[in-house]
């Protein structure tokens, strides 16, 4: 259930921006969660529903963008086929994860009086 602590990090990060901008409410949050982030989007969402009560996010819609894992060759950048070994036969090089590990607060919309 580390989704709970991640949502707490989210809300405290949001709080920083709220104070910086003198906002009175948050309208919208956009979070990217990668396939290999180790975070369950549904659990993250339900933790958010629980923790946002009585905060400035009470009316803020949470949009979760799911990012599929993309592996590429660390040398030539060629895409590794899904389900294949994480290895580029042409370069004899291991793959690197290009996308899909993120747990990122991308952007938010604040209501500023």
């Amino acid at each position: 259930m580390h989704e709970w602590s991640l949502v707490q990090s989210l809300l405290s990060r949001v709080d920083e921006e709220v104070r910086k901008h003198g906002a009175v409410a948050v309208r919208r949050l956009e979070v990217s969660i990668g396939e290999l982030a180790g975070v369950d989007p549904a659990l993250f969402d339900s933790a958010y529903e629980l923790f946002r009560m009585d905060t400035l996010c009470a009316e803020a819609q949470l949009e979760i963008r799911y990012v599929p894992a993309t592996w590429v060759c660390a040398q030539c950048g060629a895409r590794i086929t899904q389900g294949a070994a994480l290895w580029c036969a042409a370069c004899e090089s291991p793959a690197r994860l290009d996308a899909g590990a993120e747990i990122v607060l991308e952007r938010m919309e604040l209501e500023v009086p």
Partner: protein
Amino acid sequence: MCEVCGCGDPEIVPVDVHENLLSGNDQRARHNREHLAGHGVLAVNLMGSPGAGKTAMLEATARASGGWRLGGITADLATERDAERLRAAGIPSYGITTGSVCHLDAAIVHEALHHFPWHGLDVLFIENVGNLVCPAIYDLGQAVNVVALSVTEGEDKPLKYPVMFRRADLVLLTKMDLLPHLPGVRVGAIEHALARVMPAPALLPVSATTGEGISGWMEWLAARREKVAPPRA
């Protein structure tokens, strides 16, 4: 206030953040890493399922370690049994009881470092909570991630828990002495699965009972330790 017509409607301000929600933990992990590596201590984050044989591996490590100065931080939801076992094996250890927390994070490890004389160690083992899910995403400040996977867990564990195995520097295939009793488990199939979730897969078959693979494990540790500190005279 809306500045266009002065109607009194609040203004909607978009803010681009693009910040990782684990950045606080990652920052604390960097702090731990600087301390540990700065003192020439190889910190090993040892992860794996409950019952994968993490503690037994460390007991076998203690038996094979010669003059190495080893230390341990162990974590369980309840009890300090693992720390007691390590101390009995000759590894000074500090036990963390995490309550309902299913993983260690950098702040918990930092706190533990304040309670534990780790400065003179060659290797500090951080035995994480037995769990193949949550521990994988938290950087603790370790130099290496090692995952213990027992042969009794079956062939497809890597495919089921890709997040954990992706971050491993080494996978210890434990309880090899039990393999003859497991007709449905083939080491080749585990290697095949691992290659699909771990770039540059490294699998070392070991047995804490028979001693199989322990010398290879010690060599791997020694090579990693040389990267954080020059070999001792």
